[in-house]
């Protein structure tokens, strides 16, 4: 099933095909675990979230909107929301382990447009978005991390996202 698209695999999963589900797992789980680990900073917790995420994928595959959605972004969203749920229930993350101010991720080849658009943002906007995406931090935690008032962070995130959308649409 090497040549089968993710969407095709997910359509089979929606009909209960276990083989397709396993193929989808093998293909996508290393990326999804990377995200869970980045947010939770704990391998056991990240693997728990990964497991929850695939159980959810199995049971909600028929809810996937094949007309508008893309499979991997949909799965990434599932993992991130589960990781966020877990972060909110546990003690606040250790903000000292957050990336440096100049953190500048190198995105994959398929995401070069996103990379370019991120580079058009103000550095503070970019860093706030990264802290939320990669660490799952709340506005409060980002404000503590960068030692600025929460209103400032809210506005950086809001403006950053708006500018990012504007750039991606041009």
């Amino acid at each position, binding site marked *: 099933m090497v*040549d*089968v*698209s993710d*969407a*095709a695999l997910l*359509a*089979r999963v*929606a*009909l*209960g*095909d*276990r*083989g397709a*589900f*396993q193929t989808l*797992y093998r293909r996508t*789980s*290393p*990326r999804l*675990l*990377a*995200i869970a*680990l*980045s947010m939770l900073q704990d391998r056991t917790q*990240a*693997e728990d979230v990964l*497991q929850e995420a*695939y159980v959810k994928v*199995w*049971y909600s595959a028929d809810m996937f*909107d*094949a007309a508008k*959605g*893309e499979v*991997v*972004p*949909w799965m*990434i*969203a599932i993992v991130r*929301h589960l990781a*966020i749920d877990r972060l*909110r229930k546990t003690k606040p993350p250790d903000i000292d382990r957050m990336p440096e101010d100049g953190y500048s*991720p*190198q*995105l*994959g080849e*398929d*995401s070069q447009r*996103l*990379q370019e658009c991120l580079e058009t943002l103000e550095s503070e906007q970019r860093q706030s978005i990264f802290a939320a*995406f*990669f660490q799952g931090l*709340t*506005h409060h935690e980002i404000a503590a991390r960068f030692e600025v008032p929460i209103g400032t962070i809210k506005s950086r*995130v809001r403006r950053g*996202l*708006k500018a*990012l*959308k504007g750039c*991606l649409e041009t």
Partner: protein
Amino acid sequence: MNYENPELLERLAAEYVLGTLHGAARRRFEGLMLASPNVRAAVIEWENRLSGLASALPDQQPSERIWQDIERRVFPEKDRTTYFWRGRAILAGALILALVTLFVFAPQTVEREVAFVSEGNATPLWVVSVNFDTGELYTRAVSAKALDLDRVYQLWMLPQEGAPRSLGIMPVDGRTQTQRFSPALLDLLKTATGLAVSIEPPGGSPIPTPSGPVVYQAELIEI
């Protein structure tokens, strides 16, 4: 809050996907997603926009027990596999536009078979499954689009012997269709060598076999 305000909707969707919407605001927004296709569409767009960020992280291979735990949770009964479809379909003179695979599985107590019709790497056109317990054939148009007003797709099975037998007009544009067939036809289907799709006038072929071109053909692969 006025959720019909497009600017507000856009901002909430973006923050929901990023993860900075929390507490009661997040729950309210999730309720809104269930109720409104516009809200869901805005969320999907943001998922597509932001997911590329994840490509910055090096892949992490999960330990093998994770898959075993997932399997235990979603497949509670022991896997039982049966093989119905065998061989290959050969339609002399058929115009084969698509590589089509068919696969077999038998979850739990119900024996089913699924034909999965795809064009190369693209999204599947249709997914077809048969439940031999209830005699139901279920067809879902995943990406197959309507032709024009005076042409439809018709599904055929190719029995081991004799002429193709109609399995009905196929749904298009995201629709699904459930049909029930006689035990005699189901017996033929169990040993059929393939499926085929032809283009026909509205209402289907005026004769018992395809009258129009066969455009897709199912190669039946045992897995």
